[in-house]
């Protein structure tokens, strides 16, 4: 069964969307209901910076992925040991 790589990207972006939504709710509560003192500001800033760093590193690591190519879904477990390479010679539509 062939699956295009962009499906993985869509699933990842859905996960990031859920993360951003929860992050927004948390920050909103911290600012609206809490005492937005030094501890709150420090933790909020560290959290935002860490999240940005993780997302940026992920996109750098995945920048060379040919998103329109496909891979065999059931070949993934065997690829763990064999290290099957992505066919990145061109876009096979």
């Amino acid at each position, binding site marked *: 069964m062939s699956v295009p790589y962009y499906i993985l990207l869509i699933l990842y972006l859905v996960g990031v969307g859920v*993360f951003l939504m929860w992050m927004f709710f948390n920050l909103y509560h911290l600012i609206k209901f809490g005492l937005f*003192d030094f501890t709150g500001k420090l933790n909020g800033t560290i959290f935002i910076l860490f999240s940005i760093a993780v997302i940026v590193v992920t996109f750098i690591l995945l920048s060379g992925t040919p998103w329109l190519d496909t891979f065999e879904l059931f070949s993934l477990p065997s690829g763990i040991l064999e290290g*099957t*390479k992505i066919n990145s010679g061109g876009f096979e539509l």
Partner: protein
Amino acid sequence: MTQDTTSALITPTGSLSEHKPLHFPTQRPNEHVVLLLRRHWTVLARDVIQLVLSLILPPTVLLILYFYTNFAIVPETPLYVLLVMVLSLYYLFSFLAFFHDFVDYHLDIWVVTDQRVVSIEQSGLFNRVVSELTILRIQDVTSEIKGKVQTFLDYGQVHIQTAGEQARFVFEQVPHPSEVAKVILQAHERAIQQDEMKQIRQSEAYRQEMKQPLGTPSPQPMPYTPPPSNPMTTRHIPPRHHADGSFGDTPPAPQI
């Protein structure tokens, strides 16, 4: 005694000095914060340890697989893409879980003011309970330290019993519970003193008002002037003629 002096007198000192009075949401304009408490830092330390463990776990597992099995990730494989995405989401949600716990910890506060005790408890993001109790209604305050860890780190529970059958107010896992109890009782006594002073002042003012001499000239009442009659609406009644020849509105006195 003014309120400013009162709050200054019951400002916590010593080991409670780090809980310096602040402002809090729903604070009244003339209200002075005596204590603002959160749970002990060990509650948050547990979450920090969990976060550190969850951050260390993936590289540890990958290193173990690398050194003890034939596992290898070639950068241009589908597995690599999948692994990068899964690890990215894992790290994001691990940190989100920690941040969620931090917000929960940060929003749980107990405030003692010169007028009331306020408990603000956040459980989850959409569940918030704010309860308060007038400081005059406090009957007794109990501090409780349970177990070795709480004894060693000096934190525990403070129970506030109120009049009536209301449930007890509980400050959970707060630092220096016995001193907190002392400060609450001090604030309670101060509030009672203030209340008594207020009552005395009111009764004195009333007595002063009642002591005013009776001979003091009262303001002259305004003479009554009837409203001008309207000739168009006023009916003219002619004087009555009585049997004895007199006339007028009043009947003649009976002859005995």
